[in-house]
């Protein structure tokens, strides 16, 4: 079962059972909804930008352990980063979860626990859903959104 443990590491269980930043942001400046129609996972990513800097980020939704943990870990890794730094991180993360020969990226930090997903091609989309939703949020109209 060693390889299953590669996928389901303790950090992933921790974040899927107790997701961080799991709430709406009332004064969010951007938000987007992500949906994986194959498995029914749905989540919303909220962003509060201060100029080019991510002041706050959160998410809500329901999904499997991998997608929830990935979203939770993502929100932890983004605060205080510029949009450009986030893009760079997204590319490094995407590379790490899809390419077997990806070199270790120190900058990924805790996000590296999700690298095990590349051995499970059917689950890669679970790990990247939050990140794709983040991309959509960054591209969305700059305006305050209501959570009501």
């Amino acid at each position, binding site marked *: 079962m060693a390889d*299953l443990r590669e996928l389901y590491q303790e950090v992933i269980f921790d974040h899927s059972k107790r997701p961080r930043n799991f709430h709406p942001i009332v004064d969010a400046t951007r938000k987007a909804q992500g949906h994986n129609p194959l498995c029914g996972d749905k989540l919303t990513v909220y962003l509060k930008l201060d100029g080019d800097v991510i002041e706050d980020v959160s998410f809500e939704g329901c999904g499997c352990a991998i997608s929830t943990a990935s979203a939770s870990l993502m929100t932890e890794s983004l605060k205080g980063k510029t949009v450009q730094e986030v893009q760079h991180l997204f590319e490094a993360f995407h590379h790490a979860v899809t390419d077997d020969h990806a070199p270790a990226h120190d900058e990924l930090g805790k996000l590296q626990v999700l690298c095990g997903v590349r051995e499970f091609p059917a689950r890669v989309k679970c790990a990247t859903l939050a990140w794709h939703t983040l991309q959509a949020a960054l591209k969305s109209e700059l305006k305050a959104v209501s959570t009501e």
Partner: protein
Amino acid sequence: MTVVEKLKLHEAHPAYRWREDFPILRQKVHGRPLVYLDNAATSQKPLAVIEAEDRYYREYNSNIHRGVHALSQQATDAYEKARVRIQKYLNARSPHEIIFVRGATEGLNLVAQSFGRPRLRPGDEIIVSAMEHHSNIVPWQLACEQTGAVLKVVPMTDSGEFMYEEFERLLGIRTRIVAVTQVSNALGTILPVKRIIEAAHAQGVPVVLDGAQAIPHARVDVQALDCDFYAFSGHKVYGPTGIGVLYGKEKHLEAMPPWQGGGDMIRTVSFEKSTWNDLPYKFEAGTPHIAGGIGLGVALDYLASVGIEAVAAHEHDLLEYATGLVSEIPGVRLIGTAPEKAGVLSFVMDHAHPHDVGTILDHQGVAIRAGHHCAMPVMDRYNIPGTARASFALYNTREDVDALVAGIHRVRELFA
């Protein structure tokens, strides 16, 4: 009786012999013996079917209905023999009522477009059930958009039973077509199709049955049912993928316009006007899946030789056994607990998403389906994103169920 004697008696069950006919089941997955419980998605193929397709390509591959040479004649004979085999299996009145299609989906689209669309007017109603597969919802929605007709949905109970009284209430003077599944793919519910057909016919309304999930588990007699159309896929009944059947009553098929145009479906073609071939060829444009048709005939022969009643009894036993064991596992909830069920055990777990359940079971060698099973309205009805679904075929055994149960316990350990 000793434990060993009991075991021997159990292993004498014919399912252990039937298993031998399916070469794919002899493999290991992730180092564990394959336990294939994703039969509602597609069934495995017996050697006889694999060899029939192989033989066609090795020995008499040729196009049908046109060549005068020996191989073409041989291929035509085998393909048409398969059609007759299917006709007899369904107890259709004539081989002309058996249309080869790609699968149940194509069959239902054919009926919606060629039978439904021309007869539907704005405000007309089509009745479906709440537990249809997308393939018996979307073709009717397309026909509704094209004609202004309206889709009416018969609700279901919390246990996943078809609400017959609600159906009777919906069946009215505006109803033009009733299209329901015989067995729900997501829940396993068996619908009371005989009663549905009698009630609809009493109002002069034709009935289309989606038989994709029913045909591997029960004897189907289209004349006894008196359904107007019956669609199924070959690959769910031990046959090849890419081939299926639409049965239709001859009087309907005769009156329907062709669905697709092309070779084989015409009698004459000129640039002014073309005329159509006789049934069933009017609906079979282009070179069909010849090997698939032949393979499907062999698959039904195989099922008949095993005996559908014996298969149904065996699968019922597996379902009862699995239902008993799985429902006792703490934190597991069965989705679909209708009294009349066939072949399907859908469930959700308190702390594990269906996708996680699927991945962990896969690592135990147990193949199940996780997701919405192309029945999103059913998932919405239960307010869940999806289920984990184990589904049974004739080659499954109680050991397979035990492996499933052990796998679910493993999920609980990991996610506790």
